[in-house]
């Protein structure tokens, strides 16, 4: 085994979830043909189940290709770093405090209006409030 490139590229949680769902669908399709539903490797089955369980409760569960693309193009004027945008997509900040931990030196880089605008953009592209409540229900 050789690691050719340790960090080929970053993935958003949404992309990971989409890949896991596609893999699962593919195995199920193959399973239908042979009558065997289980995945071939037990360790893959375990980690996929646990990871989908985690991602289901994150904003990634409600995102789409279009939403992320439109967010990326409209967020360009804010000149944020790539990893900052990645974290915003993964974390979906709802308020100033949440955005402040994701973006370094937020208040010196963006004006108050720009921050409001950015938070509005996040809300518009990725929605929000409603599935915060859903999680509480899951917990009960």
């Amino acid at each position: 085994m050789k690691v050719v490139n340790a960090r080929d590229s970053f993935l958003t949680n949404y992309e990971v979830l989409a890949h896991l769902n596609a893999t699962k669908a593919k195995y199920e399709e193959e399973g239908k043909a042979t009558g065997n539903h289980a995945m071939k490797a037990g360790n893959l089955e375990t980690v996929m189940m646990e990871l989908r369980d985690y991602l289901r409760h994150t904003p990634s569960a409600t995102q789409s290709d279009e939403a992320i693309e439109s967010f990326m193009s409209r967020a360009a004027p804010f000149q944020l770093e790539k990893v900052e945008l990645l974290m915003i997509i993964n974390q979906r900040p709802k308020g100033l405090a949440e955005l402040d931990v994701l973006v370094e030196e937020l208040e010196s880089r963006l004006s108050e209006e720009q921050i409001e605008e950015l938070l509005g953009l996040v809300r518009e592209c990725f929605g929000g409030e409603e599935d915060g409540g859903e999680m509480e229900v899951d917990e009960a």
Partner: protein
Amino acid sequence: MFILTTFSDLITIPPALFRVRTRSALEDLINAKYANKVVPNTGLCIALYDILKSGDGVVYKGSANVNVTFRMIVFRPFKGEILTGRISSSTQHGIKVRLGGFFDDVFIPGDNMFEGTKFDHLEQIWVWNNDGEAYYMDKNEEIRFRIETEFFRDQNPRAPLKAGETDVESEQNRAPSYHILGSCNQSGLGLVSWW
């Protein structure tokens, strides 16, 4: 928190899999070898993403040996990244956080929490005293934290099981091969419900 990592490896296809399409045999064998395993200094492998290149394969001792270059989805948060998880347990040294079921080894030491956070020995939880108001960090609460340091550890070979000891017990006593130290001492971090 996830990255793509390119690996190259020699994969051995046993004769029993010769009737399966080579591509899907390779996918299954790669997943069986890597999924849910920690590769030192690389991270926790999740699943195969795609196969970039595979060689012709050489038959040796009855099996086909194929050189494959492929990309895996790997869990490897970068230093400074913000993640959310749930508190799985608290001790006087700090808080253990788990990310769903797939990663349990995040630890937030007491020193890395807000100033004024104390461990309540009666309740066995950490409490943040902020200007006279107490914020409790209960078990299973959702917590947001920053990645500070990561540790990889080479595992020693496992000793034979003692009489009466089960495989699970010896597994639990092992130090994790990949664990992460976190912090939550900036506004916006800490329990998600606080902000």
